[in-house]
């Protein structure tokens, strides 16, 4: 099955074209391959499954995340990404519904051309939707940067643009009130720059939520 | 070592026996069990020895390799001990089961050989800062019947005695790079001076729940080890100097007992050193054509 939907030019949208394939993997309970421009990530969700004895929590489900980089064994950087993905998914899931269980989310980077963390979170969110585990809300992650020379704000930059970045931001918004769920930054920035980028990304996140809606609808129809 | 399970009554029996200077196998407190030693059992190593002390069975192989010295000690060679507890001795050693015991014994050996009075590591240096010998002393414990420390140390001494390090014919520095050549003749080699190598003497203080006297036994069997709360492992050089003392076990000792124990250890250590050297010399006299039995006897 292949679902395709590209954001149109007229929206003057700022996001790179998105593309997604749902439930391509047979083993996981839900999986998604998500592409933003040339950045590609696969996410698979297992769960709720029985938790390991040491990690079991009596009042809620444990959320485990594995982030595997495209090459080589995971190192400290990947561990940091993994933590952001895990904590974001933990906020998304209604973990109290599955006490003593575990939900395992595996994210595999296939190609990184900028905005890898955002792409990984979006892929994980789609995989969760498809796996039909109860969620509080959906989330959308948007990255943006400020150009070193022009000081221009660019939403969803690709890897060549990022080379020129002074600052990069990655924001994760929830789908209801568009409140901030996660945030990760690099570089120095002023308060105004922070607020400005936050607003722009918040607006852009709507595109991703729309994309979710469309793609899941198509998927449901095909089913 | 294999499955030594003793009841309180059995332990009391052993301890009372020790008190009367009469042990379960008929020995007195300061007597060793019979020992057998054979060197050069592994022809492919630089030196080797197999030692049996009652049922305790130890095989030691020594290998010499050319290495670069540590930057902090550029004039010294290296000596490394590795003790592997084979699962053949007891199923408890399977996998990583014997690692702790192995590390404990190899650490004790390292301490005993640490002083430069024992082995002057500078003699193992070929070219300062460039090349030196590294001696790997690898111990394989094939069977344990108590008193591993003493048996291992004796076997190590025997193996080092038999060790032959190839002679270095040329050692030159060529533009910062070392160039060394080893002698082609396998009989043209250097032997180590084991004259000051220590042996370990384990003195086992036996008491169960009630402490009895201050008697200690040498060469404990595994049953006796089971009844002991504390043992003192003393490394004694042939001249009676002590190069390391390590306490094992959970018990404690009175200062006066400790002093007595150390004195006893010194006396026994001197005798033990003489004994092993005698045995090795005797073996030497059999000449290079002697038959090597290894495990076939």
């Amino acid at each position, binding site marked *: 099955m292949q679902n395709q939907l590209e954001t149109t030019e007229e929206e003057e949208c700022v996001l790179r074209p998105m593309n997604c394939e749902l439930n391509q993997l047979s083993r996981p309970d839900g999986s998604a391959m998500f592409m933003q421009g040339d950045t590609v990530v696969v996410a698979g969700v297992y769960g709720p499954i029985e938790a390991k004895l040491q990690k079991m929590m009596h009042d809620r489900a444990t959320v485990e995340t594995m982030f595997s980089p495209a090459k080589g064994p*995971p190192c400290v950087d990947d561990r940091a990404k993994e933590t952001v993905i895990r904590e974001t998914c933990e906020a998304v899931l209604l973990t109290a519904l599955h006490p003593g269980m575990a939900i395992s989310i595996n994210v595999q980077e296939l190609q990184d051309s900028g905005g890898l963390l955002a792409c990984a979170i979006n892929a994980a969110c789609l995989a969760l939707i498809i796996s039909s585990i109860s969620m509080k809300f959906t989330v959308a992650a948007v990255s943006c940067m400020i150009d070193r020379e022009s000081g221009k704000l660019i939403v969803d930059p690709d890897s060549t643009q990022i080379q020129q970045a002074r600052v990069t931001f990655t924001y994760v918004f929830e789908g209801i009130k568009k409140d901030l769920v996660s945030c990760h930054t690099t570089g120095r920035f002023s308060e105004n720059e922070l607020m400005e980028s936050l607003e722009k990304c918040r607006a852009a996140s709507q595109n991703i939520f729309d994309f979710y809606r469309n793609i899941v609808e198509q998927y449901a129809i095909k089913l | 070592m294999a499955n030594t399970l003793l009841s309180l009554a059995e332990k009391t029996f052993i301890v009372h026996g020790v008190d009367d200077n009469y042990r379960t196998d008929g020995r007195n407190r300061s007597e060793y069990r019979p020992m057998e030693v054979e060197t050069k059992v592994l022809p492919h190593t630089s030196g080797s020895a197999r030692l049996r002390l009652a049922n305790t069975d130890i095989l030691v192989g020594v290998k010499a390799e050319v290495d670069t010295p540590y930057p902090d000690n550029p004039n010294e060679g290296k000596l490394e001990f590795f003790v592997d507890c084979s699962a053949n001795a007891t199923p408890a050693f399977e996998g990583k089961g014997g690692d702790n015991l192995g590390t404990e014994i190899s650490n004790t050996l390292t301490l005993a050989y640490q002083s*430069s009075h024992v082995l002057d590591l500078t003699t193992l240096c070929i070219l300062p800062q460039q090349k030196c010998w590294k001696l790997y002393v690898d111990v394989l414990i094939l069977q344990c019947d108590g008193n591993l420390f003493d048996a291992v140390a004796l076997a190590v001494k025997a193996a080092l005695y038999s060790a032959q390090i190839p002679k270095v014919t040329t050692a030159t520095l060529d533009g910062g790079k070392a160039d060394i050549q080893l002698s082609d003749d396998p009989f043209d080699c250097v032997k180590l001076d084991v004259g000051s190598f220590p042996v370990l003497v384990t003195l086992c203080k036996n008491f169960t729940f009630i402490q009895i006297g201050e008697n200690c036994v040498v060469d404990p069997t595994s049953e006796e080890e089971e009844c002991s709360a504390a043992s*003192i492992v003393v490394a004694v050089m042939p001249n009676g100097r*002590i190069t390391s003392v390590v306490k094992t076990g959970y018990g404690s000792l009175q200062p006066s007992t*400790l002093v007595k124990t150390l004195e006893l250890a010194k006396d026994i250590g001197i005798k033990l050193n003489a004994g092993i050297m005698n045995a090795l010399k005797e073996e030497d006299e059999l000449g290079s054509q002697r038959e090597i039995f290894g495990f076939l006897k």
Partner: protein
Amino acid sequence: MPFDQKRINGPEVSVPYSVYTDVNKSKSSKPKKSLHKRVDGREHKDLRKIFVKTGVISQAKGSAYIEVGITKVVCSVFDPREIPNKNEYSLQGELFCEFKYAPFACAKRRIHQQDAEEKEFSLVMQRSLEPAVCRQEFPNFQVDVYALVLDNGGSSLAAAIMCASLALADASVPMFGLVTAVSAGFYKDTMFLDLTVEEEVLCNSAPAKPNPPNNHGLIMQAALPQHDQISEFFLVGSINIDCIKQAIETLTVANKNICPVVQQCLVKTVLRALKRKEQEKN
């Protein structure tokens, strides 16, 4: 340095700058000086000043901090937990000790993993403390003791043992008595008590003339001074038996002398705990 996936890694090879300084040359003059008078002005049998404090780590069940000269050690003890990876029932509880130098604690940078020396010291610590702990009180359980040397000014093993015994007491682990420990070193015929790092290095190296053999070596004696028992005796070097006898005597006295300092600290701890209890009541 081997690449570690779980840490931030530096270059493969790096050299401490002390290698390139000229200090090494002046080393030879040192032994003579310290044989008569020690660098810090102490007599040969003098101990350094000791500062001890308990309850320094809020998250631990019991903890202690000790300063001996510039040597600084912290130690923490946690609630008993079931012995991991053990199937049979063990009648006696176990003590798990971990001795670690902070990477920056010694003149030469240490790696994060425990090296052979630290593992050996962990075992020595365990053997020193075991006779003092009533292990039959917590069968099938294990008490974890962690000691970290922040600054090594010599005799850090002895300091760690004392610190651990205080931390155990602070954690209300039942004990027969306090453990104290003192180190001594021999160089030729001189015996030093409570060594500094320089003295440790000196005593570890053999004197130049081996014939007739001169003494050299380090001794660490841990004791339960209240019961007149030696709980651990750790010797490395090459020393004749008469000198060892002399050392045991001196160390036993030194251990007895330290005991009141440690006891004082415990009294304070108990008073503090009582006060806190009273406050809670009100």
